[in-house]
């Protein structure tokens, strides 16, 4: 029964996310509202980690599988893509690498800098 209850809580939060999505006129999907709601519920203690943990871990583990149907859907969008496929492919590859590198490098730089500042502060003390 534990898993059923956990799944029920997760679906309830997804449902609340859906409700937010319908009520608020922004292009934010139900899943993102749900993620924020779940995090808030956990932080405020309304929801205990043990009440969702195993089912949440399971769903996250099998998450890649859930993208297969959408990815196979590329079969159908080929006709729309055909006239501009070349720039689209180049832009997709380049921007993915650029975004990944910039995000990673900037984050790493800032982490290292704050660590150095902390160790300098410790030296003065």
């Amino acid at each position, binding site marked *: 029964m534990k898993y059923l209850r956990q799944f029920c809580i997760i679906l309830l939060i997804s449902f609340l996310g859906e409700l937010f999505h319908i009520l608020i006129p922004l292009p934010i999907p139900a899943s993102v509202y749900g993620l924020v709601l779940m995090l808030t519920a956990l932080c405020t203690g309304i929801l205990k980690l043990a009440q969702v943990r195993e089912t949440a871990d399971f769903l996250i583990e099998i998450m890649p599988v859930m993208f297969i149907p959408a990815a196979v859907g590329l079969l159908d969008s080929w006709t729309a893509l055909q006239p501009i496929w070349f720039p689209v492919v180049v832009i997709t590859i380049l921007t*993915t690498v650029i975004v990944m590198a910039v995000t990673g490098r900037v984050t790493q730089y800032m982490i290292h800098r704050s660590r150095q500042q902390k160790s300098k502060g410790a030296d003065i003390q």
Partner: protein
Amino acid sequence: MIAFLTDSVFFGAVISLAAYEAGLLIRRRFKLAVLNPLLIATVCVMVMLTLFKVEYRHYNEGAKYISYLLTPATVCLAVPLYQQLTLLRKNLKAVAGGITAGVLASLVSVFALAKLFSLTHEQYVTLLPKSITTAIGMGVSEELGGISTITVAVIIVTGILGNVIAEFVFKIFRIEEPIAKGLALGTASHAIGTAKAMELGEVEGAMSSLAIAVAGLMTVIGASLFAYLM
């Protein structure tokens, strides 16, 4: 036989799961990053549909029950994020800085390349939300007057690509901090990248989940401003 396959409710789900299982086996056997289970599964299913002449909408009759779980699974990404909350608080500045830089890099590079290829406004705004999660990206594209089917296709390819090349990119750019890796994956290739981040570690997974939400929301605002540029 083909009529049976098109009518079957379970066919789509079974071949999707079986293809993923095959993908896992192949990766375990050869241990190459390019042999990504999601990529292998997608190609396998595409080949089977073409061979058996099953249309996508018939396949999706069964496969849609797999997609159904995507929203609950995304909601669950709050769990690893919650478990890493102290780490997040400690590195708040770096996290905020990293995601902002990534979102800006995405918008600027799409703009620059769109100019280079002299794309139309419609094509440009179609590509603007390419790095964020499908559901937000589709909405942004529609709102700005883009072609949302192409946006969805590009978002998925971006996700799979990021998932496949992540470890290679981290090596070349010497990105070693788990927080930085997680944010990079989530900002560059949303939930499909997060699947990779989850494999790398708990911190990577949590940070990647955070980046999906934050980068997605930032792009909603950023893309609507960038849309005026071209």
